[in-house]
């Protein structure tokens, strides 16, 4: 569907994500969920490894949801850029909090 031109602020060049693509995204997410549960229940005993694995899998899932379900992959780049800025902001908060925590001990 291509409607109207860009200057009016209307939607243009809409990419329609197919049902099949959504279904495969879903299957991928379920597999990652099974993976993270398995790793946790039968997995590594080392504390940091387990946290890192869990967070890596969770972040992979988050990226998949954002790119495919939330259409970030096909939408104008500005949304991805804004998301990046917010994540950077959060990382700065996290690092500063960590530094504060470590400096107190």
């Amino acid at each position, binding site marked *: 569907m291509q409607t109207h031109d860009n200057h*009016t602020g209307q939607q243009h060049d809409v990419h329609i994500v197919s049902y099949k693509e959504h279904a495969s995204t879903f299957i991928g997410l*379920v597999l990652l969920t099974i993976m993270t549960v398995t790793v946790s229940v039968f997995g590594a005993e080392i504390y940091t490894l387990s946290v890192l694995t869990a967070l890596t899998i969770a972040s992979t899932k988050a990226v998949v949801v954002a790119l495919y379900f939330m259409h970030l992959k096909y939408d104008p780049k500005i949304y991805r850029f804004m998301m990046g800025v917010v994540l950077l902001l959060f990382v700065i908060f996290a690092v500063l909090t960590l530094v504060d925590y470590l400096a107190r001990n």
Partner: protein
Amino acid sequence: METTFVLPNSGHKRDDVSSKMGMWLFLFTEVLLFGGLFLVYMIYRFMYHADFMTASHELNVLIGTINTIVLLTSSMTVAMSITAMQKGDVRLSRRLILLTIVAALIFLVNKYFEWSAKFEHGLFPGMEHYNTLPNGERLFFFLYFFMTGLHALHVIVGGAFLLFVVRAINKNKVRQDRYMLLENAGLYWHLVDLIWIYLFPLFYLIH
């Protein structure tokens, strides 16, 4: 493409690009809201590592996993409902949204049973058994109830938002050439899913 300059508010009654951007800006505030809570969680987990592990064993991994799958399914159905709307299949789109709302209800029912079990064990902040727990375990359960509670509130709001969209579809206010409301409701719903994606391993799957 035309090169004539058109002023904003020049008689056009809608602005899809800004509408979506507004939704994203709101979602960013939500990310930072939960982000702050995750930082609290991170620090206390460092400080009370052993207590967090003990307390986490009280949580039901099975219900957590089922709820994760339920939310992922609902995310797919709402994404598909946008596809259906873009293709002009309004009936299918509405059905998929209703399916999403059903998934939201299933999630909340599971949550109800899960929380009831915790209440029976006296683990809610302020209860007798809770007060006898060591510091770290108390913090764990406090954060558990606060964060999953706030998340459940978002599930309720998301469900209401989707119901509002169904009403708009019935009134033909959301249709093939005008579905930004549906898309924004979808974005909100996906955010609810995103937050759960982090809540689940951090609370249920601590090893």
